[in-house]
């Protein structure tokens, strides 16, 4: 990254280079959002728009505080989170197993691959009406939908990663007379680990999309999507903004944790 930065500045012929220290960059990064927030707040004080159309940042913060202490906020966050986790765990493990199967067995790949690829052509949310008809609208249906959303990303990435294992390593396994179990544990899984983790991270993102989407459209409460609906029904934009901000932060936390786990798992033997 720094190499590109230096080269980039060099191409521009500029004398100064932007601060490299993470803290300074972070602070600079807050400038624009900070500025926008100030402008927003000033616009509200100047009463440029009625309060119910544009709540000020302060009132949004205030709403956040009241929701946190008083209302069902924690319950909503908890409900959404648990849906995400339940769906993610069940969906990605199924996806992992399926991806392994397709990657390791040529026969399985020929039998199920085309069907799987066809399935993937159908947009995710198209399954909601079907699932709601089959499950009747209970919690199981929602979890099933989130599971479904996690299945394909993990499956595809796992499948690809296993197939990408170099032929030379497969030959090595033959020469060392490895059985299928040896091959899977010593070569296939470690070799495909990077791709599997990519798939799992993608699945996590889809789990959020599916959860929020399902909550929004099936009017499910409690949940963050439910809060958004509530805000829309009651025309309480400050509540909606709180919910959106929380979603962003939760998404960020998930992404960061996933990146952290990925690094710990992979970096041990990689060394750059």
């Amino acid at each position, binding site marked *: 990254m720094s190499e590109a930065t230096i080269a980039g500045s060099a191409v521009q012929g500029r004398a100064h280079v932007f601060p490299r220290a993470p803290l300074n960059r972070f602070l600079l990064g807050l400038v624009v*959002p900070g500025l926008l927030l100030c402008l927003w707040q000033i616009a509200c004080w100047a009463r440029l728009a009625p309060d119910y159309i544009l709540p000020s940042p302060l009132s949004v913060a205030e709403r956040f505080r009241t929701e946190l202490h008083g209302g069902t906020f924690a319950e909503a966050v908890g409900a959404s989170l648990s849906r995400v986790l339940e769906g993610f765990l069940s969906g990605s493990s199924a996806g992992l197993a399926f991806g392994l199967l397709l990657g390791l067995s040529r026969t399985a790949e020929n039998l199920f691959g085309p069907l799987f690829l066809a399935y993937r052509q159908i947009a995710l949310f198209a399954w909601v*009406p*079907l699932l709601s008809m089959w499950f009747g609208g209970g919690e199981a249906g929602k979890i099933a939908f989130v599971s479904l959303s996690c299945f394909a990303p993990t499956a595809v990435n796992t499948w690809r990663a296993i197939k990408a294992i170099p032929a030379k390593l497969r030959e090595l396994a033959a020469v060392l007379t490895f059985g299928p179990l040896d091959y899977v544990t010593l070569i296939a899984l470690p070799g495909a680990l990077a791709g599997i983790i990519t798939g799992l991270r993608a699945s996590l993102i889809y789990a959020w999309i599916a959860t*929020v989407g399902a909550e929004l459209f099936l009017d499910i409460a409690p949940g963050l999507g439910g809060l958004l609906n509530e805000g829309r029904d009651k025309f309480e934009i400050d509540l909606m903004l709180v919910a959106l901000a929380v979603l962003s932060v939760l998404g960020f936390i998930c992404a960061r944790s996933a990146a952290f786990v990925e690094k710990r798992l992979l970096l041990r033997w990689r060394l750059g």
Partner: protein
Amino acid sequence: MKRVNTPLSARLRRLAQGLAVPAVLLALWAGLAAANRLPEQILPAPAAVWAALLDSAASGDLWSNTLISLERVFEGFALGALGGLVLGALLGLSERCRIFLDPLFMFLAQVPTLGWIPLLILALGVDESMKVTIIAWASFIPVVLNVHQGIRDVPGSLRELARVLTFDRWYSVTRVVLPAAVPSIFTGLREGLANAWQTMVAAELFASSEGLGYLISMGRQLFQLDLVLAMVLVLGLVGLLVNGALGLAEQRLLRWQEHAP
């Protein structure tokens, strides 16, 4: 010990294997329905689904709604992709833009796209502009991410080359950096289109009175499971065609590169 395994026979075998499972499932489905073992609310007979499909095609509903869906997707995608190319390029090329704009963008991008819909409905109502906007936003994000990363990933060695050949900024960007980033740009466009498609379906399912998604939703409300299934299949098919078209375009434009999937 000579094995005669011509490529053609191997390919036919693969084709047969690929069709085997769907064929078996289809037969099972039809068999259960014929034996009256399948409650209609769970799964209507294949014949009923087929009939619903033909009806919809005959009445013109299918075509008009499909067209509307496609229009929406392309309108939204075009807007989002264009904007995404611009912002992605800015973020990739200018460190100043990166420092100031990236955090804000990433913060907004973390919110699941569909989460913006309630706010948009309040702002724009439930009409076309809301849908095109959300589809554009859904396309915007992956294009920005991929273009940004693609430009950053251009190897330092190439940039150095530009410098040694005394290219000025504009020349270096247009002749070296951007072409080198083209594969990533296409990845971003592909993801953007996929996102646009998914968002279109979601938006139509829940907030629309026309389009393929609307047909599915209507079928659900009328408890016409055969219509729902028929439209889901059509959705899959159209999605496949759209993806295929983009893939072809990509192949044409990326001929100079060995494209490894």
